[in-house]
């Protein structure tokens, strides 16, 4: 028991010396029954140092006396019996305590982060090395490199004015590729917008990425959704929607659908640290727990939500701790360690499907690039912080050291591969630029399953306008 409480100089203190014992006991029972104080406690009784040093408890001095002052056995037994009683509450049996306690706002120990390879790609000897096949390991690395190069070139294309928007995943390659590697093609994925890697893993080609960015007629979205918001139903990846966290309750719905059909698959959804502030995040976690749906919530905690750092986003110890508040099993992993992420997602998927429960995985990483091409992050964060994470904590370089040391890859192969990928991306861009844009009719289809009359009319109106004033409309617009 903490002994930092100063000796109270109030009525109870006097009472213990002056009144008879039974009177004192009666007074004790009054204290035990009430759960709230009508007067604020004197500040000398409130612990000033919360945190890891002292136990975060606030004690009332009445119970302090209870533990030490009883001479009568009967009285002591009665108090102990009361403390052992439990309340048969609707949410479950609740044991009483006569020590007023406040759960601390921060845990004594921060949540531990799971990693397998250290910063230089050496396996941490104390951990059991997960068994990942060579094939998957190499595909993971190659896809991470592809993603890295693709990002760089598309970003440059935007800067050259060839596309009007792009958002890179620089620094988060591992958290993009590794979860996809750990899933099966039947698992339904609902990404946020910084996870093109999951599509890449599943087989979305560079040409298909470029088509979406150039919004040409080969784009599966038919040129309607904004850049970087890919979607492919044949790869089981839902089309990304711009508002943050709206995909989280939708993912619960998808998981519910899988649960109803008893499929051996789960729903997987991504969000960022900023997305966890949205109401949808909390409701989705709550729903998933209540409905016992097989779903993985993978949160890419990359430190920044545009210009909002973590300290201004939430005050909890990361995101993994939020899971317990909803009754969800959670873990925290090093998001820049592909093997760790792979292992965690694999295990989580197993639990989610077999036990029909949601799992929350927080992957710690860093957003090296700007939020998007409309952002200059040097305005709100130091450039050397960015460089540190780009170089020292680069997930691709780290993984490369691991595979090269194992003899599965060489520097020569690496540079050769990078040249090839670069060429492919450039070709994809050039081809996508040349492909026609979607025709005007595609503006009016798919609003409903069949185009209704008012939309047909509106299409007629715009066609007439184009015919009458062809110079006012883009000449390369297919009609």
């Amino acid at each position, binding site marked *: 028991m903490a002994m930092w409480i100063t000796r109270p100089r109030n009525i109870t203190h006097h009472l213990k010396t002056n009144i008879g014992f039974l009177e004192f006991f009666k007074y004790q029972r009054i204290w035990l029954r009430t759960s709230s104080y009508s007067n604020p406690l004197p500040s000398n009784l409130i612990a000033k140092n919360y945190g890891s040093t002292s136990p975060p408890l606030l004690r009332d001095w009445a119970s302090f006396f209870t533990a030490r002052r009883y001479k009568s056995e009967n009285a002591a037994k009665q108090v102990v019996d009361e403390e052992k009683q439990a309340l048969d509450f609707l949410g479950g049996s609740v044991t009483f305590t006569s020590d007023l306690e406040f759960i601390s706002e921060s845990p004594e120990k921060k949540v531990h982060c799971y990693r397998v390879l250290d910063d230089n790609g050496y396996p941490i000897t104390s951990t059991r090395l997960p068994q990942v096949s060579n094939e998957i390991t190499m595909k993971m690395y190659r896809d991470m490199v592809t993603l890295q190069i693709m990002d760089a070139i598309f970003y440059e294309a935007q800067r050259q004015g060839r596309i009007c928007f792009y958002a890179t995943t620089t620094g988060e390659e591992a958290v993009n590729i590794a979860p996809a590697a750990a899933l099966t093609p039947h698992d339904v994925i*609902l990404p946020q917008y910084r996870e093109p890697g999951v599509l890449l893993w599943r087989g979305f080609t560079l040409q298909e990425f470029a088509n979406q960015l150039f919004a040409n007629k080969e784009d599966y979205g038919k040129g*309607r959704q904004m850049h970087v*918001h890919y979607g492919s139903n044949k790869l089981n990846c839902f089309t990304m929607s711009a508002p943050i966290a709206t995909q*989280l309750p*939708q993912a619960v719905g998808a998981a*519910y659908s899988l649960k109803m059909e008893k499929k051996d698959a789960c729903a997987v959804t991504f969000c960022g640290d900023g997305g966890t502030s949205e109401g949808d995040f909390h409701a989705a976690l709550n*729903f998933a727990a209540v409905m016992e749906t097989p779903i993985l919530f993978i949160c890419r905690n990359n430190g920044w939500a545009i210009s909002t750092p973590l300290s201004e986003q939430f005050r909890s110890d990361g995101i993994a701790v939020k899971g317990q508040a909803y009754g969800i099993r959670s873990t925290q992993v090093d998001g820049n360690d592909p093997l760790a992420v792979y292992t965690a997602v694999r295990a989580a998927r197993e639990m989610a499907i077999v036990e029909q429960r949601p799992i929350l995985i927080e992957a710690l990483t860093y957003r090296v690039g700007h939020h998007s091409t409309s952002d200059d992050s040097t305005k709100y964060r130091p450039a050397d912080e960015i460089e540190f994470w780009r170089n020292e904590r680069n997930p691709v370089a780290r993984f490369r050291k691991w595979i090269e040391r194992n003899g599965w890859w060489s520097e020569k192969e690496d540079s050769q591969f990078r040249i090839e990928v670069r060429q492919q991306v450039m070709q994809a861009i050039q081809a996508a630029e040349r492909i026609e844009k979607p025709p005007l009719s595609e503006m009016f289809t798919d609003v*409903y399953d069949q185009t209704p009359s008012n939309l047909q009319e509106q299409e007629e109106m715009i066609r007439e306008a184009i015919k009458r004033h062809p110079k006012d409309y883009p000449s390369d617009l297919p009609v």
Partner: protein
Amino acid sequence: MAVVFQGIGATAALTSATSVDSKKLYILSRRLVSETKSTFMVVRSDGRLNSGSNRRAQKLITNAVATKADSSPATKPGHELLLFEALREGLEEEMERDARVCVMGEDVGHYGGSYKVTKDLANKYGDLRVLDTPIAENSFTGMAIGAAMTGLRPIVEGMNMGFLLLAFNQISNNCGMLHYTSGGQFTIPVVIRGPGGVGRQLGAEHSQRLESYFQSIPGIQMVACSTPYNAKGLMKAAIRSENPVILFEHVLLYNLKERIPDEEYILNLEEAEMVRPGEHITILTYSRMRYHVMQAAKTLVNKGYDPEVIDIRSLKPFDLHTIGNSVKKTHRVLIVEECMRTGGIGASLTAAINEYFHDYLDAPVVCLSSQDVPTPYAGTLEEWTVVQPTQIVTAVEQLCR
């Protein structure tokens, strides 16, 4: 477009895409059948608008359509039920027919729904198909959208339409849009339904008319039911539709009783209903206001007027074909709605009629709507905020001068 399934007699009518100029006179739909030969179809809606705290019993117009009454009720085919039971029947039939149909909402499971629309369904179909959700409208609407994209056909019940304002983000940004932005890859066949409209002293937040806010969202369809017959038909059509449909029910209409056919029937989601054919003036209305209009019609008939009353039913898109034919006949239009004056369904309908049928109008389109105020709680104030039959009679008299 939805197709009309008629189990009545031998006429099977198919409506094509609504275009103003097609020869619709040849198409027999239910409304015309009911006028010519009413065998078992008694369009009778008893005006018992019961809610728990109803002190003022308003007796509304009963038989508004000119039909030949049958003698003995025992020989009438069909069965009588209340509107909420009709909704339930439609829902149950669809759940029986298609295992992918599921319901989600607050208290829909074992409680049976706040208005008993899902009563006993959880016992029959299980907790998973009739899902009780925590209180987070945006989230269970989002959940329905995700489930729909994965292959289910969910029905979302909002306990009150006003709460669906919390779901606006999911309805607008996702439900209406994802079919389009995904390039047609994902369909979202959800039905979002719930009671709205001004009730009996339920307060401003429980008396919202959400059709005004939702009407702009591209990609969704909106329908409003007003009788047990059209409630069941529209519910079934909405569930079978591939598009997201919002079905607006009215808090005060749940206890309407009517005899509906035993056979299965589905109504067209884009069709309006001819309640009372006439010659002098077209009165367009929907949901509860239909009954106020029919009550006014009784008075008007006594005064020598012949109003044509159309229940527009389809709020998005408007059935401009039926409305157009009526305007071409009568040349005068009165719109009676419960929405607020600004930006309501009546406002959009006025604009549409003026745009398309301006040449056929002999008088400006008049729209009677609620005032632009939050619905007051006090009974008298609440009554004044809703359009009353006397106001309708006055408006008709003025228009027909």
